[in-house]
């Protein structure tokens, strides 16, 4: 890094490219791979693509939603096991499914402030190699035994153990405050907004078809590096159709309102992604072409606990704030990347923006944000087809959109990602 950082001057942060391993359905191809394994492979793929072997970068920021306690310093450990210069600093972040995009925002902000010249943002998640914890009873007993000073105290502590304490505690994909799974939450929101089964299946089929087409035309050639003999996202069904999806039984919701199936919801997935972000100067010195600029970002959260708002509705709130700050209308974009946690998530968000009452009462706007051109939505496939390893989704979307904008010869793109805990992370890219 020949350029000396110039502090106290904001500048543009460029997305130079990305890498991910193909996403794999949980308990399948990557069942034995740890978060660190997958993130290292992803980082090394990025290093190879951009010739960064032995380079010291400003920082690497990444995270995982499901994390072992041994992974307290996951990203730094990953850097140490990668081809990057081991003097590259790193830290972990976690904002549920927003982790990957939030990491990118952090790196881009430091670049913008001149604190670093270049950094990598990433995310990884394994639903297969999930951290299984000991029961509360066993944990308390072990901690007490550990604190004991004498053998007798230790024996006494251990004697308090009950057989039931030996059962492991497996992490559950539920909101701690509501006890409901994300799907159950989404089903409630979908019912409220009257999202139909047909619309969800249509969106799911389009996601698969778009992703398959993008692979076919080589779009992912420089965005994906194979891992453990997986060369493409193995959740992808290129022959997916509305008719086939219509045959699946609903898994969330009840009775006539049960519209959400395994086909129009994302499966549990393993995978990792990483994005290279740098200043214009660094890009030029390294002969790398910025694919797009990360212009601005916003996060929002909603109070979903007692039912005031749907769990995954926060992006609906974040986007108008972002639009207002940048003086843009919802229609001022060439591409929209709305994370498909569920098909219903995307459809609800769009419907909310078209709803004058929602926009007025909830968003405090004069009128509806309006509709978007569906032909600009998730044009290269999204999570329903690719899968959704929670923290890795942000990096997947960011790199794909940046490349899409570059390929398009310019334009503006909107990213919207919903996250557990009623949160939403959104961003604008321009090329």
């Amino acid at each position, binding site marked *: 890094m020949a350029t000396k950082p110039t502090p106290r001057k904001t500048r543009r942060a460029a997305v130079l490219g990305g890498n991910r391993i193909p996403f794999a359905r949980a308990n399948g191809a990557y069942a034995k791979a740890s978060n660190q394994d997958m993130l290292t*492979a992803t980082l*090394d*793929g990025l*290093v*190879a*693509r*951009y*010739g960064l*072997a*032995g380079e010291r970068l400003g920082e690497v920021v990444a995270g995982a939603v499901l994390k072992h306690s041994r992974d307290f310093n996951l990203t730094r450990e990953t850097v140490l096991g990668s*081809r990057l210069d081991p003097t590259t600093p790193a830290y972990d972040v976690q904002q549920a499914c927003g982790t990957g995009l939030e990491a990118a925002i952090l790196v881009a902000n430091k670049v913008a402030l001149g604190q670093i010249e270049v950094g990598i943002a990433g995310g990884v998640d394994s639903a297969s190699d999930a951290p299984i914890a000991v029961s509360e009873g066993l944990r308390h007993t072990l901690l007490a035994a550990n604190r004991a000073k004498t053998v007798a105290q230790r024996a006494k502590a251990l004697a308090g153990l009950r057989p039931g304490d030996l059962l492991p505690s497996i992490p559950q994909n539920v909101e701690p405050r509501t006890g409901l799974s994300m799907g159950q939450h989404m089903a409630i929101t979908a019912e409220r907004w009257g999202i139909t089964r047909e619309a969800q299946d249509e969106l799911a089929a389009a996601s698969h078809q778009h992703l398959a087409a993008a692979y076919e035309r*080589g779009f*992912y*050639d*420089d965005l*994906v*590096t*194979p*891992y453990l003999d997986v*060369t493409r996202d193995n959740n992808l069904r290129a022959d997916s159709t509305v008719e086939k999806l219509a045959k699946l039984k609903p898994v969330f919701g009840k009775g006539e309102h049960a519209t959400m199936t395994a086909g129009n919801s994302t499966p549990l997935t393993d995978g990792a992604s990483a994005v290279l972000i740098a200043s214009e100067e660094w890009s030029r010195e*390294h*002969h*790398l*072409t910025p694919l797009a600029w990360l212009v601005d970002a916003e996060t929002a959260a909603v109070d979903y606990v007692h039912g005031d708002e749907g769990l995954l509705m926060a992006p609906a709130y974040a986007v108008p704030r972002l639009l207002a700050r940048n003086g843009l209308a919802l229609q001022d974009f060439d591409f929209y990347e709305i994370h498909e946690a569920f098909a219903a998530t995307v459809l609800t968000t769009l419907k909310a923006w078209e709803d004058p009452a929602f926009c007025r009462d909830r968003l405090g706007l004069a009128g509806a944000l309006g509709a978007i051109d569906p032909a600009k939505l998730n044009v290269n496939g999204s999570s329903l087809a690719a899968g959704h390893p929670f923290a890795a989704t942000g990096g997947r979307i960011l790199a794909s959109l940046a490349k899409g904008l570059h390929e398009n010869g310019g334009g503006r793109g909107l990213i919207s990602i919903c996250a557990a805990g009623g949160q939403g992370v959104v961003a604008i890219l321009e090329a």
Partner: protein
Amino acid sequence: MTDLFTRLISSSVAKKAGVPQPTRLRRYQPGVALCEGPVLVAGGGRFEGGLTDWLATLAIATQAQSDDSADRLGGVVIDLSAATDPTDLDQLRVIGAPAIKRLAKNGRLVVIGTDPATLTDLAEVSTQRALEGAVRSIAKELRAGATANLVLAQGDSSGGVRSAVEFFLSGRSAYVDGQVVRVGESTATNPDALRPLSGKVAVVTGAARGIGAEIATVLARDGATVVAVDIPSAGDALAEVANKIGGTALQVDVTAPDAGRRIVEHATGRHGSIDIVVHNAGITRDKLLVNMDESRWQSVIDVNLGSILRMSAAILADGGMADGGRIVCVASIAGIAGNRGQSNYGASKAGVIGLVGALSNELRERGITVNAVAPGFIETAMTARIPFTTREIGRRMNSLQQGGRPVDVAETIAWFAQPGSAAVTGQVLRICGQSLLGA
């Protein structure tokens, strides 16, 4: 590549039982002396003096005639470029016979002649053509890893001759035996002997594994910045290669219509130029012709030959390869001698040889050389899967009585790629230990 059978025949028991033992070949290492022992330079040709002076600059002792000292010779260079009459050929015997007796393990015999194609006198043409038969025969007589090769000079090409002699004397040519190389005129030299490819940007296709990975590694060792190219589905292995050598990985299928453009864009955009292209990517889909389906035939022809033709157009267009560039193709002994069950593969590789001949002529004015290597039996993961009897025959049916290694192919390619090899173009060099197969 040590399997049980290899270990068995290499064992001391086998040695005592009289199974011939292959010699561990001397291979190139940067900074190590060109050859082990003094070099006898004789024959009275027009390059003799220049070569003696050049060897002196490398601190290699030379002898003008064979003495009776017990010193083992590292190499013997017999310059018969001035031989005009069949009776002159006796010099080979006069100089060669005592010298070969003194030749060290892994020694080298390099004979220099004049390319008969540049001559008109009947006696001269036949005399020079005779050298080829003699050298190929002597190569078969040499033992203990020693090789014999022939350099044919086109005119007064002292630079070209020196480059070829250096290659043949060195460990780079360990598995090249009984071969002929024609060299043209050039005064080009390598600016940096230890890193001859320093400052060059090299593209290697099929670089994820096997021979391609070795080519990328050797080019990087010699100083090149390497763009490692392979199909997207081999991206993980490709990334490992690229990271190991500090290059960049480019995932692209060489048969894609825009493959050439993407390669040029990547190399020039990221690294500023495209100086060396090694067309190594290749596939086999073996079947007897009577059982061959269309996809097997077409895919082999397209990957191994069609893609090179298409990419060459983009690589050689404006903004692509600069003048003085290097193109090296990986052909195959199957493209020369043919191979049962490989009519598609043999066709594609013979086609590559044709391409090298034609394209080298076309690009001569731009100073771009086009050459090919034709590997014989090279020990790779692929050959390890051949049933062992077949494999053992393949391995042993050559003058060096062993299989070559991927690095042997890579070293020859790296030599073609050197700035100092400007005089070498249109050549197809077999790396086969003088296999019994083929011409």
